[in-house]
């Protein structure tokens, strides 16, 4: 167990140390989310009615949840690369704890997710977003956000080992996750959608999580959303972590 923790930290450190040296990744973490905030706020914002909230308040929790779900992309691309460049073979020939390669990757994602969420909140504050609930609620929201991002890291870890090239991971991930994030309450109120989409949007874990964030950060009525979001995140981890580990064993040739 001590080996698992220390090996996981070594791998997480490896993935974080390389970050500043890969400028394209840094751009993905910083410039891109800022760009989306500005586009939505100023291009669509005027046309979208969000009763009870200013669009800036409405948008920030939604776009942060969307953004964090994609944080795990780095894991998909990185694992795929490691697999094909022989690094996974090297790791597997070492007397290290087996799950550490995946656990370290996803742990590193938590750090980068925290970084990009912070940048988004700061951007939000500049364009008119503000917290309407207490500090504890705001922190609970941050915690929920990181948990949700962590869950999607496992989805992407699985995906990264399922497909044969980083490009495939990119397009499959994009096609699978992007519509999910849009058919939700992230950018528009769900009651504005056609009935079928609306039915889907209401049970979509993204909607549940975004609504939970709005209640924790903006004081919106929560219903069961906070617990619902936590359960969704844990359920996603419970399904995809074992799938990813099994896939890792197989993909690595065992």
């Amino acid at each position, binding site marked *: 167990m001590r*080996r698992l923790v*220390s*090996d996981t930290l*070594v791998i997480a*450190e*490896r993935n974080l*140390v*390389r970050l500043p*040296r*890969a400028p394209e990744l840094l751009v993905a973490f910083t410039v891109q989310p800022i760009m989306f905030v500005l586009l939505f706020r100023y291009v669509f914002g005027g046309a979208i009615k969000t009763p009870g909230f200013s669009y800036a308040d409405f948008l920030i929790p939604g776009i942060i949840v969307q953004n964090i779900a994609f944080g795990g992309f780095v894991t998909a691309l990185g694992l795929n690369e490691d697999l094909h*460049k*022989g*690094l996974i*073979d*090297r*790791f*597997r*020939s*070492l*007397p*290290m704890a087996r799950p550490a390669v995946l656990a370290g990757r996803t742990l590193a994602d938590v750090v980068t997710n925290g970084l990009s969420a912070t940048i988004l909140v700061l951007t939000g504050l500049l364009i008119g977003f503000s917290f309407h609930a207490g500090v504890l609620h705001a922190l609970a929201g941050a915690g929920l956000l990181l948990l949700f991002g962590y869950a999607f890291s496992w989805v992407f870890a699985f995906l990264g080992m399922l497909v044969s090239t980083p490009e495939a991971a990119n397009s499959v991930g994009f096609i699978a996750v992007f519509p999910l994030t849009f058919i939700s309450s992230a950018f528009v109120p769900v009651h504005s959608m056609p009935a079928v989409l609306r039915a889907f949007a209401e049970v979509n874990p993204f909607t549940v999580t975004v609504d939970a964030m709005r209640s924790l950060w903006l004081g919106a009525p929560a219903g069961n959303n906070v617990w619902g979001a936590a359960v969704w995140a844990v359920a996603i981890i419970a399904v995809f972590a074992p799938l990813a580990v099994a896939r890792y064993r197989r993909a*690595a*040739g*065992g």
Partner: protein
Amino acid sequence: MPAEPATPTEPLTAGRQELGPSAAAVSARGLVKSYGSVRALVGVDLDVASGSVLGLLGPNGAGKTTIIRILTTLLKPDAGSAQVVGLDVVHDAARLRERIGLAGQYAAVDENLTGLENLTMVGRLYGQPRVAARRRGNELLERFELLDAADRATKTYSGGMRRRLDLAAALVAKPPMLFLDEPTTGLDPRSRLQLWGTIEGLVAEGTTVLLTTQYLDEADRLASEIAVIDHGRVIAGGTPDELKDRVGGERLEIRLGDAAQGEPAARALASMADETPTLAGDLVTVGVHRRAGVIVEAVRRLDQAGVGVEDIALRRPTLDDVFLALTGHAAEEQQDDQVAA
């Protein structure tokens, strides 16, 4: 193969670095592995004496990499068993990983980390404390002449530098047993010679090495024993000299002044040859038993037949000749049909 049965009944303690000079560092029996319908290994026996170098020689897709992957615990065999430094590759896999080093076909280093960071990471994954791992990393970088590049991201390294770093990573834990999967494939001749020198240095210090190669000169230079692999089985084994002896004696090579004279030249030399002389362009190759007087006699016969000779030489058979004789095809020929290896 020298069918010296190993002694798997007495596992050596994991802590001991020195095995006796005659102890088996690797002993594999009846290894079988299939990938779907592709039969990669169909029953491989191997022995590597401690302190020696075994070269697995064979074309692409012969099964060399599969053997390495099984012996380094990356892959479980479908059937058969293997011990490496006295530890079973399946049942003692975790302990075995502490005692082996693997340098792969692809230089498995993290391109975004520096040379030193790569080695430190590997050291820590062997369970070394950070400071000790860094110290060992620096030691290895110095030894492999990479100290100047220690703090550069490895994506800026040349191919040869990457291979050296990959090899250094395999040596972090001072393993008594080293596996090298095509260590010089794709390297330029100078880097290749350099890496050969490094490997020879490790062997001189007592490291046991099992390496795969498709280069006959590489096996000839590095290996004390060679196992020739083709279609998932060992088709021949022995020292490089033993293998060459199996192909027969000397090769007399005559370069003709005029390629059109190949036929009369072959006729003139037929009665002194072991087998029918072979013709390739202006080159006539004649297998002969004895050395003494052969050149003089050949020149005399060719002169009488009115064949002009550009050059004539007697050489020992190379492993190319061995491969051709054993498999009926040249070693390099198969490079294109890539079967899952």
